[in-house]
C-alpha cells in the first residue's frame, strides 16, 4: 500500500508546513519569555480597549445576524414571495466579496461625499471612524453564516409538522417556537459559532472604516497589525495568541455542532 502512504504523508506534510507549524510557533513565541511577559503584553491599555471594542461589536452583530439569518432562511425556503430569488443570491455575496471592497462601499456610502454621509453628519451621527461603522462592516461580512446553515435543514424537515400545528389552531409564532426552532437549533448554533468567529476576526473591512485610532476605534485584529508594524512584536504575538485561543474554542464548538456526516448522506439520498 505504498500509494496510500504517499498520499497520507504527503497531504499531512502539506498540512504541517502550511498550517500547523506556523500556528504552533506563534504560541511558542508568545510564551518564550514567560507567562508574565505575555500577560503584561495583553493587559496594556490599548490592548484591553481593543479587546473590549471587539467584544462590544460582536455582542451586537451576532444576535442581529442570528435573528435576521433565521428570518432570511424562512423567507427563502418557506415563503414563495417574489424577490426571494434575489435574497437567495445576495446572501452569498459577502462570502465571495473581498473585505476591502466591503469596507470601501461603506466608506463611500457614509463618507462626506456619500449618499447618507452629509445628512447623518449634519444631524450629529458619526458612522465612519466610529463604532457604528465598525459594526456595519462586521455585520456585512458575517451575514451569510446563519442563513447558509439553516436553509438546508429547513428544506430537509419539510412542512408537515408545521402544517399539523397550524391545523390544530396554533398561531404562526407558536408554531415557529415549538416546531420549527427546535428542529433547526443545531444548525442555528453552528451558524452562530461561525458568525462569532468571523466577527471577532474581521480585519479588512474594519480596517477601512474604523481608522484604527489606538484606544478609540482600534479592534483587536488591528491592534495585532499596528503592533507588528511598530516593531512591538511581543504585543502582536500575545494578542494573536489570544485570538488564536478564541479560534481554537470555535473549533471545539464547531466539532460539537457540526452537521453529522451520516445525516448529510441521508439528506442527499
Amino acid at each position, binding site marked *: 500500500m505504498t500509494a496510500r502512504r504517499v498520499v497520507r504523508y504527503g497531504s499531512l506534510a502539506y498540512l504541517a508546513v502550511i498550517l*500547523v507549524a506556523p500556528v504552533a510557533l506563534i504560541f511558542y513565541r508568545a510564551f518564550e519569555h514567560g507567562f508574565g511577559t505575555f500577560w503584561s503584553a495583553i493587559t496594556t491599555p490599548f490592548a484591553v480597549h481593543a479587546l473590549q471594542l471587539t467584544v462590544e461589536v460582536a455582542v451586537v452583530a451576532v444576535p442581529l445576524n442570528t435573528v435576521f439569518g433565521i428570518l432570511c432562511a424562512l423567507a427563502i425556503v418557506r415563503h414563495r414571495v417574489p424577490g426571494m430569488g434575489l435574497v437567495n443570491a445576495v446572501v452569498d455575496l459577502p462570502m465571495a466579496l473581498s473585505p476591502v471592497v466591503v469596507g*470601501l462601499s461603506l466608506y463611500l456610502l457614509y463618507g462626506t461625499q456619500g449618499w447618507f454621509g452629509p445628512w447623518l453628519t449634519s444631524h450629529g451621527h458619526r458612522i465612519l471612524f466610529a463604532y457604528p461603522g465598525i459594526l456595519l462592516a462586521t455585520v456585512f461580512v458575517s451575514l451569510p453564516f446563519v442563513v447558509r446553515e439553516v436553509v438546508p435543514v429547513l428544506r430537509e424537515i419539510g412542512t408537515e409538522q408545521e402544517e399539523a400545528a397550524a391545523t390544530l389552531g396554533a398561531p*404562526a409564532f407558536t408554531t415557529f417556537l415549538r416546531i420549527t426552532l427546535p428542529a433547526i437549533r443545531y444548525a442555528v448554533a453552528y451558524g452562530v459559532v461561525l458568525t462569532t468567529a468571523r466577527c471577532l476576526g474581521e480585519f479588512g473591512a474594519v480596517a477601512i472604516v474604523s481608522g484604527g485610532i489606538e484606544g478609540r476605534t482600534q479592534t483587536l485584529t488591528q491592534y495585532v497589525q499596528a503592533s507588528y*508594524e511598530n516593531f512591538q512584536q511581543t504585543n502582536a*504575538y500575545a494578542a494573536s495568541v489570544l*485570538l488564536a485561543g478564541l479560534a481554537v474554542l470555535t473549533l471545539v464548538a*464547531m466539532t460539537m455542532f457540526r452537521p453529522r456526516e451520516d445525516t448529510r448522506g441521508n439528506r442527499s439520498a
Partner: protein
Amino acid sequence: MPRARRRALGTPLLSSGLALTYLSVIVLIPLAALVAQGQKGGWHHFWQVAWNPESRAALKLTLGLALAVVGINAVTGTALAWTLVRDAFPGKRLVNALIDLPFALPTIVAGLTLLALYGPNSAVGIDAAYTRWGVLMALLFVTLPFVVRTVQPVLIELDLEMEEAAASLGAGRVTIFRRIVFPHLLPALLSGIALAFARAIGEFGAVILIAGNQPFKTEVASLYLFQHLNGGDTQGAAALAVLLLVISLAVLLGIGGLRRWATRHDR
C-alpha cells in the same frame, strides 16, 4: 378562517419584507454606492482610472496567484479529503478538526503566524517576507479548507462497490481513480475550487503583513485598493473595487450553475 389567512398572507410578506430590507440596508445599498461612485465620471473615465499599469500589474498578479492557489488546492485538498475518508491513522479526528482552523483563525493572525516561521527571523532559515512566494503561502493557508470540505462528503457517500467491481475486472489504481472516483468528485471539486478562487482574489488580512507595500512586485488587487484609498485616490480604489465585485459575482454565478449541473439528474 381569519387566522389561516393571516398565516398565508400577512406573516410571509412581513418576514420576507424584513429580510429584504435588512439585506438592502446592510449589503445592497453600500454596493450600489460603490458602483455609483466608481462610474461617476462615466464609463470612459472609469476605464481610464481602472486600467493603468499599476492596477494591471496588481490584477495580473492576483489572477496568477489565484490560479496557482486553485491548482495546488485541487491536488492537496483532494489528497487530504481522501486521507481523512479512506485512510486510518492515529490522530485522524484531530487532523479533521484542524482543517477548519483557517476558517476560525483571524486572517491577520494567519499572516503573522506565517511571518513568524517564514519571515525575517525565521527558525528554519526561509525568508519569504515581501516576496510573491510569501503571498502565495498566505493564500494557501486561508484557502486550505475549501476543497477538503466540499470533496470530503462526496467521498464518504461514494460506493466502494463500483471501485471493487472495476478492480475485479482488472483496472489499475490510477484507472479506477481517473474513470470512477474522479468523475464523481468533479462537481464538488469544482465548487470548492471556485470558492477558493474567490477567496484568493479578495484576500487582504493574511497578505498585508507578508506583502508589505511594493507596487508591481507583491501588490495584489486588495492591497492596491487599500493603498490607493489611503493615498487619497478614492476614484482609483472604487474603480478597482467594481472590477473585484464583478469577479465575485461571476464566481457566484458559476457556483450556482455548477450546483444546477451537478444535481441535474435529481430533478
